[in-house]
């Protein structure tokens, strides 16, 4: 058993070229059965995620953006092994997450942890802080109570809480403090990969920056890789190096954050970015307003998933699924406008 106090988490050595992705998702589809199918009815499925591929490199922050119900959280949960995919798979450190035996699976999953959206429901109200943060160590086993307590105290200081909070219960804390406890619990096993599922959207605006700064500080000190799911495009622009825009379970546009913000190619991305508020009052942008609602994922359009609401939709968008094309190095778009001749 390793002595955890004298064994600080290792920083990842990141080089710009030729490093292997930490997590790669290949052609991932997740379909859930819903109702029907008994005796006569046709079996229906919700196509939550369809054919998504992405690579996340060590040390970076990867943004995942999209409307509510577009499959971001399902994708993240599948990457963590909480949901078994219908098709495709996830590689973590080069190993197939769904192709290994149960013991290796559990061990691999300890390298990936999650920060939840709602800090009020993610902490067991019956536990005190020591039990909440120390639980992952207890589950893994092999640590004495003193070791666990020392490590929890160390983490409490790291996330900006005091030693006095050790025996308090979650109900004694504010939302921001609870989120700090959730972060401490997520990083106690020294994970390489941390999924942040809208970590600030349930908090006060005044606390947003504190939590984001804490996450950035931890990334710098410990060297974790983040998958950052968010609604907030301004936040994604600030902290993410790469990003993917999703719509109705499909990837619309993906690439470096800079190049997407500078040169959005997909009409959906353009509409999203035009909705971001700017501090400069004189800078009057053209605002693209989308009509209609997001269609049901049970029965998505045959062609491009976005065709019903797209301001630039063409005839062929309704029938043919657009292929993903690389418009710039590392910048992928799934749109007929970019993939060739216009009909």
């Amino acid at each position, binding site marked *: 058993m390793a002595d955890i106090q004298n064994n600080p988490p290792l920083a990842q050595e990141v080089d710009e070229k030729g490093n292997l992705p930490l997590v790669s998702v290949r052609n991932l589809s997740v379909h859930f059965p819903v109702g029907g199918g008994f005796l006569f009815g046709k079996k229906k499925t919700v196509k939550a995620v369809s054919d998504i591929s992405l690579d996340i490199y060590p040390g970076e922050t990867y943004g995942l953006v999209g409307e509510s119900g577009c499959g971001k959280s399902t994708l993240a949960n599948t990457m963590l092994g909480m949901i078994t995919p219908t098709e495709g798979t996830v590689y973590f450190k080069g190993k197939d997450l769904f192709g290994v035996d149960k013991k290796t699976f559990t061990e691999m999953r300890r390298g990936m942890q999650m920060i939840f959206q709602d800090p009020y429901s*993610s902490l067991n109200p019956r536990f005190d802080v020591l039990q909440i943060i120390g*639980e992952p160590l207890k589950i893994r086993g092999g640590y004495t109570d003193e070791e666990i307590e020392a490590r929890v105290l160390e983490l409490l200081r790291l996330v900006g809480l005091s030693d006095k909070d050790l025996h308090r219960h979650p109900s004694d804390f504010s939302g921001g403090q609870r989120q700090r406890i959730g972060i401490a619990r997520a990083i106690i096993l020294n994970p390489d990969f941390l999924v942040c599922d809208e970590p600030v959207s349930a908090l006060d605006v005044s606390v947003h920056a504190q939590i984001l700064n804490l996450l950035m500080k931890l990334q710098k000190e410990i060297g974790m890789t983040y998958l950052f799911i968010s609604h907030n495009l301004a936040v994604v622009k600030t902290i993410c190096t790469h990003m993917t825009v999703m719509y109705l379970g499909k990837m619309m546009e993906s690439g470096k954050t800079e190049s997407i913000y500078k040169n959005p190619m997909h009409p959906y991305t353009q509409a999203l970015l035009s909705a971001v508020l700017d501090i400069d009052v004189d800078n009057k942008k053209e605002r693209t307003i989308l009509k209609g609602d997001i269609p049901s994922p049970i029965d998505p359009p045959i062609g491009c998933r976005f065709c019903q609401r797209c301001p630039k939709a063409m005839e062929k968008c309704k029938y043919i699924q657009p292929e993903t094309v690389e418009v710039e190095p590392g910048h992928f778009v799934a749109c007929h406008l970019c993939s060739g001749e216009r009909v």
Partner: protein
Amino acid sequence: MENFWKKAGKGIKAFGIASWKKIKKAILGFGDFIKKLWMRPKGRVGLILLALLFICAVFAPVIAPFDPYDVTQRAAKGLSPSWEHPLGTTITTGQDIFSMLIYGSRVSLSIGLITGILTAFIGAFMGILAGYIGSWVDTVIMRVVDVMLVIPTLPLTIVLTNLFGKSYGMIIFIFTLFGWTGLSRVVRSQTLVLKNSNYVKAAELAGASRMHIMMRHILPGVSHLLIMSTALTSAGIMVAEAGLSFLGLGDPTAISWGKMLAEVQSGGAMLFGHWWWIIAPGIGIFLAVFAFMRIGVAMEEVFNPRMKQTSSVYKIFKNLNGAYIEEVFDSMDEKEKLGYIEEKERVRHE
């Protein structure tokens, strides 16, 4: 070898300290809980009554003035209440009724409590298993529950007692067999809520086994249901046991309140007008059930503070009434509505 003993000693010591801490915490927690009950008038009445009944049951030989099993007092048959026999004696055998009443609390309380606790254990086990594991385990357990719920209990009890004999253990077995079903449904639905909570998800991510999650997260989450059900089913079981004994299906060798009622009927108390013999076991049953119900209701208030003050039944009735008046008002035409309002105003002025 020496190393091994050292390690073992350390382990035992660590275990001892840990378990002592846990025991201490449990005792303190229980004390806190009792204190919370004591703070409420309902809980206080229940606790005092229950304590009295327990004292009666435990120290029955000390308190009871006569031996209730003594059926040889031929000279003392059918006596009216006096200082020597506070509740008189039975007509048929001359047993002291007051002593029988005190001894009867032993059977009633113990059957109620043991069955309540066993029911809580089995109901929790089945409910958590069905809710957390899901899939075929859920289907099997829930179908068994469905079947158990539609079986009429009384005829089956008569059959079972005739088959396997009438005894104390048999009664507990039968009541437990049919008691756990309702509770397991409630526990299952609560488990389904807890199962999808984020802290369970976090524990799963950390590699927790199903056992760990069920014991550490879900069982504490449903514990308030279990404690409440123990109190409320105990009360129900005591009434049911009295009913069974009255029908002659109880333990024939023990003295219980239900059996006393049966003797009242067969011994001809009605004929001779010995009302004290009729009322005595009834008061015993009433007090015990009342105590458990009071405690159960007080627990409900402790665990669910939003529902205190007004009883939910009263609220529902009030709402229904209001809705009815509104419905009638809506169905009137304009003229009638005006007339109704004028009438109301007039009544108010008068």
